[in-house]
């Protein structure tokens, strides 16, 4: 898989935003009052344990796993939740990981969109350009977007 592929125009979600314009975008779209994300620019990622490592943020693209171009965003992205409570519930329910990392995506070179249905708390974060690949220091991002990690088991 090449990292330079073009994004099929019809797959671009309407609410796809740059992280840096997160709060403004959420307010403009009328979701400011109920969006934890808009207030704090925080997202929650289920991880194996604390502290999380790079393997906790691998997308299909980074892993080199093939996927259908119809699933482009699922292939280059990672799933996150907009509330810590929901992330913990999902982690327990689906047995996905022992901990939840709080991620501050302000300033990160990522794009995001709320991908769950109405009333749900799922978000997709698309790591493009991929910060895992691009980093030169061995640190995931500068500044490191993982601001907290809590084990729930």
């Amino acid at each position, binding site marked *: 898989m090449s990292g330079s592929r073009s994004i099929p125009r019809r797959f671009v979600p309407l609410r796809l935003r740059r992280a840096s314009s997160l709060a403004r975008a959420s307010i403009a779209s009328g979701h400011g009052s109920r969006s934890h994300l808009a207030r704090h620019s925080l997202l929650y990622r289920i991880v194996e344990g604390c502290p999380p490592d790079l393997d906790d943020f691998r997308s299909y693209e980074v*892993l080199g796993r093939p*996927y*259908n171009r119809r*699933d482009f965003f699922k292939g280059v992205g990672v*799933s996150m939740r907009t509330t810590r409570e929901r992330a913990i519930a*999902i982690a327990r329910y*689906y047995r996905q990981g022992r901990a939840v990392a709080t991620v501050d995506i302000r300033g990160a070179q990522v794009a995001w969109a709320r991908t769950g249905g109405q009333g*749900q708390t799922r978000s997709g974060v698309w790591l493009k350009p991929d910060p895992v690949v691009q980093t030169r220091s061995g640190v995931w991002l500068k500044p490191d977007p993982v601001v907290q990690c809590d084990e729930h088991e």
Partner: protein
Amino acid sequence: MTRFVVLDQITRNQLGEFPTVEEAEACLLRFVNADPSAAEHLEIWDDELDVRLEIDPAALRPAPAA
């Protein structure tokens, strides 16, 4: 309302949630068609009954043309 959730246990990504199991199976099958080894770590869950569905990806494959 029941939702069928497609999960990938390798990336911990939720690949979709659908109102019918057929749609969830179609999503899973797309990933399996792209990479047959994906069948080992893709799951479909019934969100209401709190159960993981037993899915045989081979059974989902469309019959080859005669």
